[in-house]
C-alpha cells in the first residue's frame, strides 16, 4: 500500500512539472514576449522595459524557465492589470466557488449514476432499463451550457408565470447568492446558497451522471455473473444484501477510477456552466480573462485547473487502493 501510494506520488510530481512546462511554452508561443501580453495603449513603454528586466527576460531561456517555475510553485502567479491585483488573490477568491459547484455536481453524478446503474442492472432488459438507456443517450449527447439555458428558461423564468407552481421549485437564474444575502439569518443563508447551486450543478452533472449510470450498469452486470454472488445466494443471503453488500463493493471498484477521469470533463463543463449562470468561479475567470486579454490570469487559471486534475487522479488512485484489498495488501 505505502509503496503503491509512493509510486503514484512519484508519477504525479513529474506530471505537475509537465503541466507547468506546457503553460510556460504557451506563454512563449504567444506573439511577442510575455510583456506583449501587457502591451496596452495605457501602459508606458518604460514600464514594460522595467518588467522585462524584472522578469529576467534578458536572461537565457532556461533560467527564465526555472525562475518562472519557482515563482509558480511559491504561489506567485503574476499581476492582473485588468483587475489591478495579484492573480493569486483572484484565484483564492474564485477557486472555492468552482470546487463547491464541481463537488456538488460530482456528488450528484455518482449518487444518481450509481443508483440508476444498479436499478438497470438488476432489472436488465426491462422496460425501465430500456427507457433509462435511451434517456441516458440523449442526456449525455446534450451540451451542458444549452441544458443550463433550458433549465433557466423553465425553472427560473417560465415557472414564474404559473400560479400553481410551488415557490420552493422556482430557482434563481444566476450568481452564488441573492442580492440581499447579507440580511439573511444563518439558516436562510445556507438555504439561499443551496438554491443557487441547484440549477448549475444539474446542468453540469447530468450528462456525466448518465455516463456513470452506463458504466455502473455494465460493471454491475459483470459482477452479478461472478461465482461469489452464487456463493452468497447459496449461503442464504437475502437478494437485497446480495446486491448491496456482495455485488456493490466489487462493482464500485472500476467506478472509482472514473472519478479521476470525469474531473477534467467536469471542469470543461464548468467553464461553460459558470458562464451561463454568472457563477464567479475559475471557469468564469478564465473566460473573462481571455475577453480582456489578461494573459497572466489565463495561464494561472489553466495551470490550477490541470493541477486540480492531477491531484484528483492521485486521490482516486489512493481511494481505489483503500477499497480494493488486493492492492491494499500488495
Amino acid at each position, binding site marked *: 500500500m505505502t509503496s503503491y501510494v509512493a509510486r503514484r506520488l512519484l508519477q504525479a510530481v513529474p506530471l505537475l512539472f509537465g*503541466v507547468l512546462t506546457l503553460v510556460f511554452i504557451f506563454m512563449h508561443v*504567444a506573439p511577442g514576449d510575455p510583456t506583449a501580453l501587457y502591451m496596452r495603449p495605457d501602459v508606458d513603454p518604460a514600464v514594460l522595459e522595467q518588467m522585462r528586466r524584472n522578469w529576467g527576460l534578458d536572461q537565457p531561456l532556461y533560467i527564465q524557465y526555472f525562475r518562472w517555475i519557482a515563482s509558480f510553485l511559491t504561489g506567485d502567479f503574476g499581476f492582473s492589470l485588468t483587475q489591478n491585483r495579484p492573480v493569486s488573490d483572484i484565484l483564492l477568491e474564485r477557486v472555492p466557488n468552482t470546487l463547491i459547484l464541481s463537488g456538488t455536481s460530482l456528488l450528484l453524478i455518482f449518487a444518481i449514476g450509481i443508483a440508476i446503474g444498479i436499478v438497470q442492472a438488476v432489472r436488465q432488459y426491462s422496460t425501465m432499463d430500456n427507457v433509462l438507456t435511451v434517456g441516458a443517450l440523449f442526456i449525455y449527447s446534450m451540451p451542458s451550457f444549452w441544458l443550463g439555458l433550458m433549465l433557466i428558461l423553465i425553472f427560473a423564468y417560465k415557472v414564474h408565470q404559473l400560479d400553481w407552481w410551488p415557490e420552493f421549485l422556482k430557482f434563481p437564474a444566476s450568481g452564488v447568492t441573492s442580492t440581499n444575502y447579507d440580511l439573511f439569518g444563518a439558516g436562510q443563508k445556507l438555504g439561499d446558497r443551496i438554491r443557487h447551486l441547484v440549477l448549475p450543478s444539474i446542468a453540469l452533472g447530468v450528462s456525466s451522471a448518465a455516463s456513470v449510470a452506463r458504466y455502473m450498469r*455494465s460493471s454491475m*452486470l459483470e459482477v452479478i455473473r461472478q461465482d461469489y454472488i452464487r456463493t452468497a445466494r447459496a449461503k442464504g443471503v437475502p437478494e437485497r444484501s446480495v446486491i448491496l453488500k456482495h455485488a456493490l463493493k466489487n462493482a464500485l471498484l472500476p467506478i472509482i477510477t472514473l472519478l479521476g477521469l470525469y474531473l477534467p*470533463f467536469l471542469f*470543461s463543463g464548468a467553464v461553460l456552466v459558470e458562464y451561463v449562470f454568472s457563477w464567479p468561479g475559475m471557469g468564469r475567470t478564465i*473566460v473573462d480573462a481571455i475577453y480582456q486579454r489578461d494573459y497572466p490570469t489565463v495561464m494561472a487559471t489553466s495551470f490550477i485547473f490541470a493541477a486540480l486534475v492531477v491531484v484528483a487522479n492521485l486521490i482516486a488512485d489512493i481511494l481505489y487502493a483503500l477499497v480494493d484489498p488486493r492492492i491494499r495488501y500488495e
Partner: protein
Amino acid sequence: MNDMPERSGEIRHRALRLLMALIPGLAHLRQGHTHAGLSLLGLALSMITVSIFANERIQATFTAGRLDYWVALLTLAVTLGLTWVVSGVSSRHRLDARVGGSQWAIAWLGFKQNRVAMLGLYLMIALYLATLLGPFLTGYEPSVIGDIAATRHLPPSVEHLMGTDKFGRDVFTRVLYGARISLSIGFIAVTISITLGTAIGAVSGYFGGAVDTVLMRLVDTLISFPRLVLLITVIALFEPSLLIVIVVLGFTLWPSTARIVRGEVLSLREREFILAARALGLNSPRIILRHIVPNVLGPVIVAATLGLGNIILIEAGLSYLGFSVPLPTPTWGNIINDGREAMLQAWWVTTFPGLAIVITVVAFNLVGDGLRDALDPRLRT
C-alpha cells in the same frame, strides 16, 4: 397461338427490367431486401423532390454562381447519380458476408442487424445531405438582415419553421448553415486527431522504451488539462478563425486516441505474426503500417465516431463563448448565444440549435456504439 403468352411474358419481363433499371431500389424490393430497397427509393425520391421544388434556385445558380449553390447542386447531382449506380450494381452482385466474408464484412453484417445503429447511420447521412443541400431546403439567406421591425422574433410558423431571431433572420436557415460549420469542423478535426493519435500511439507502443516514456508523459500532461480549458488557452493566443479552430481542435484531441492505439499495439506486439514479420527482417515502418495499423483500425474507427459527437459538443461550447468562427457566420453555438438575452420573449432561438446538437450527437453516438458492438463483441454493454 403458342408463342403469344410467351411473347407477352417476355415483354412484361423486359418492361420490368426497364422499370428496375429506372427506379432505384425496385430490384432490391423484388429480391426481398426491403430495407435496402426502401432506403434507395426514399433517397432518390427526396432528391428528385428537392430538385423540382428548388427549380428556380437551380436556374439562378447558373447566373449567380455562388459557391454555396454550386456545392449544393453538385451534391444533388452526385447523390442522385449514386443511388442509380449503387442500386444497379448492388442488386446484381449482393455481397453475402456469411460465405467466406472478411472481418469487415462480418462486422458490417453485425452492424446492419443493429436497428438502432442503422437509425443513427441514416440520421447521420440525412444530416450531411441536409447540410450540403442547405441552399435548396430554405428560401432565406443565413446572415442577411432584412426588415427587422417586421420580422424580428417571429415565433415558429410555416414560413419560419424555427422562428426568427433578433435581426429577423430565419433560425431554421441559420441552423442549417450552422450545421456546415459543426459537421465540417468535426470531420476535419477528428481526421487530424485520429491520424496523429494513431501514429503516435503506434510508434509509442511499438518501440517502447524511452520513446514510449516521453510520448506517454506528453499524453498524460495534455490529458490533465480539461479539454475546453486547453482549447481556449491556446485559442486565446491567436485570433479565432475557422482554420485556427480546426487546427487547435485537431492538435489537442489526439492523446486519448494515442492511448487506445498504444494499448492495442502493446498487446499486438507480442503476437506471432508480428514476431514473424520481425524475424523476416521487415523494417519497422513497414511492420507498423502493414501489420499493426490495420489491426488497430477497429478501435480507432469507434473512437473516431464517438469523437465526432464529442467534438461537435466542444465546438458548440467554443462558439457559444465566442472563441470559434467569428460572426456573422452562423454556428450552433453562437446562435444559442445570440438568443440568450431574449430567451424569455423568443425561446425558439436558443432551443432549436440546441436540439440540432442533441440529435446530431445522438446520431454519432448511436453509430459509434453500433460500430463498437459490431467490431468488438467483447466490449458490448
